């Protein structure tokens, strides 16, 4: 029997037309679909627009030395952001990232300066501290099945206390430590601009984890566990083992962050990086990674960290009161979460 189009007035035909209308492709739905596939586009666009606007407001913003400065200012948050992204991708959150990083930095500084331990051993000890701290978080989340928010809220206080125990509140100056510990703050010249080794290490870290998250099974499992933990378990993924490995990896990244922090401040200070917990979460959220887990792009976090740095620097150069920097960051976060929620509502 040949296909005949039914007249528009019959009930089935009206249903067809209605469905067609709902499924229509509008420019908005095309944008939404693209952002769903490549969530890093929106922060990239925001960053580009911000750089252009701030450059127009004050020409000094675009000076290569200033741009290099911005990368140095976000190097520590950017590194911590990798750890935070991994954990948030598993639908968790880590409030103790700053405390672990500062604890590791004080251990490294103390053993090197006070006990005369050589630089590379001090770094090794810092790494061990980071791994152990990450393992503590991981064990509490997986073995004892406590929510990551609560666990890391508790370990945050534990590591702050341990930091005080180790440091007694004193700062260790850069010239009391071996040169290796402050190496991340040293610069080299490229095309007339000074770049620190710390910034380079951060970028290399991002490249490594971008590859791991997209090309390795472990990386895909991280997304799977964050998206739907039961479905992941049913496909044979050892969820507890994976979560533990995520927290331990995060701990190692935090130790690296501690090294970069020492280079940046040219000191190991127990009062460093005061707001870095929230700053790292801000960078992850602005970067388009969903706080509900399972979706996001590691490069988004770097873009998020850069956006915050660009706004802070640009608004300061524009001569605006520092209050506007705080306001801008708050607005960026809300807009980013709003876009994330909107993207999530994509229909196939």
């Amino acid at each position, binding site marked *: 029997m040949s296909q005949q189009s039914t007249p528009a007035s019959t009930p089935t035909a009206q249903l067809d037309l209605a469905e067609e209308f709902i499924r229509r492709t509008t420019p908005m739905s095309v944008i939404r679909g693209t952002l769903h596939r490549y969530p890093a586009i929106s922060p990239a666009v925001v960053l580009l627009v911000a750089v252009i606007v701030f450059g127009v407001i004050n020409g*000094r*913003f675009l*000076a290569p*030395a*200033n741009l290099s*400065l911005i990368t*140095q*200012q976000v190097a*520590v948050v950017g590194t911590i952001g990798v750890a935070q992204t991994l954990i948030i991708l598993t639908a968790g959150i880590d409030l103790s990232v700053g405390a672990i990083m500062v604890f590791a930095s004080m251990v490294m500084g103390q053993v090197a300066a006070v006990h005369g331990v050589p630089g590379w051993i001090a770094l090794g000890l810092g790494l061990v501290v980071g791994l152990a701290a990450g393992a503590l978080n991981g064990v509490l989340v997986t073995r004892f099945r406590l929510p990551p928010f609560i666990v890391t809220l508790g370990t945050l*206080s534990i590591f*702050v206390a341990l930091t*005080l125990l180790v440091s*007694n*509140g*004193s*700062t260790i*100056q*850069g010239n009391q430590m071996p040169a290796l510990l402050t190496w991340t*703050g040293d*610069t080299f010249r490229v095309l007339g601009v*000074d770049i620190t080794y710390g910034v380079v290490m951060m970028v290399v870290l991002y490249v490594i984890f971008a590859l791991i998250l997209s090309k390795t099974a472990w990386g895909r499992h991280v997304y799977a566990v964050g998206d739907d933990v039961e479905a992941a378990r049913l496909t044979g993924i050892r969820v507890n083992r994976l979560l533990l490995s995520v927290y331990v990896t995060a701990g190692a990244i935090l130790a690296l962050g501690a090294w970069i*922090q020492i280079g*940046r*401040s*040219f*000191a190991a*200070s*127990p*009062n*460093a*990086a*005061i707001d870095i917990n929230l700053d790292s979460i801000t960078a992850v959220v602005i970067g388009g990674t969903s706080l509900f887990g399972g979706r996001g792009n590691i490069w988004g976090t770097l873009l998020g960290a850069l956006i915050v740095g660009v706004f*802070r*620097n640009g608004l*300061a*150069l524009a*001569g605006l*009161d*520092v*209050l506007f*920097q*705080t306001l801008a960051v708050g607005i960026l976060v809300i807009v980013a979460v709003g876009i994330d929620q909107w993207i999530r509502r994509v229909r196939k």
Partner: protein
Amino acid sequence: MLNHTATHGRVKRVIAACSVAVVATLGMAACSSSGSSGSNDKVGVALIVKTTSNPYFVSMETAAKAAAATAGVNLTLAAGTKDGDTDTQITAIENSISRGDKGILITPNGPAVNNEIAKARKAGLYVIALDTPPDPANTVDITFATDNFAAGEAIGKWTAAKLDGKKAVIAMVDLSATQSISVDYDRDTGFLTGMGIKVPDKKKNGSEAPTGSYTGATGGNYEIVGHQPSGGAEDGGRTAMETLLSKNSNINVVYAINEPAAYGAYQALKAAGKTSGVLLVAIDGGCTGVGYVKDGILGATSQQYPSKMATLGMAAIVKLAKTGKKATTSTGLNFFNTGSQLITDQAVTGLPSIDTTAGSKICWKN
């Protein structure tokens, strides 16, 4: 059914064990509290600091412990978990009232403790604020603090003298942008006033004209590049200095709220190749800070004496308990000034100062 009886029996045993434990604990607590209340001829004083993570407050505790031992005072120490934690301080005040202390020495973490302080005073305790006068000042019986404005003036006068008529391109590295804190605006406006710059509103950072002339020493022109917050720590100081250098690379005067922020600012100056020809000043005078002056990182610093605040405060409470006489404020101020001294190895005529060797003998440990 057998299961039910077995579980029921177990539950009973658990409840019995718990009750015994509770009774035992209460009994021990009762015993220990009756033990300590036996020594009620000693004056009880509570020292409640902001946080023990800051060596500044630790030095207050150390001085207080030593003074309590010699004066035969029953000293109880308490602290917030971090700067800004008022809840722990409120609990500590309540404990002090129930303990029957004669007085409280407190560095308030915020105005939220004012209500509890009022209750303590109503209960007959003498409350002394240390380091920061609360707002309003009569929330406590008296405050023992550094005159932060005068401390700022001293380094301002020193800077003007060292400039010797040159144009001052000034970077102000402050404490906070989100809160109006007295130590922040007192030191900032004090420094500017010491330089001879007109400050219309001394209770706020940034009310001065961005350009003009300063009258300190020989006098000259000035330009203020900006105020940036540092959080009082090294990394914040560095970021603040970098931002200000990006705005104007000809900065030759840097004021920092404290020595850690100044250290961070110095790192930024070093990275920009601008360490010579820049006058960097700060306030606090901790042993590390005096070391910075000695090493040439800082040009001068104003030293303050937290241990004096604790010991003089404790002496005032003991005096009140024994003689009924209350302490009085310093002339012209609404608090008792524990003083500050200018520490520098480059003394200028007409401005009293001590050098770093003398300064390192009386500095507070950090």
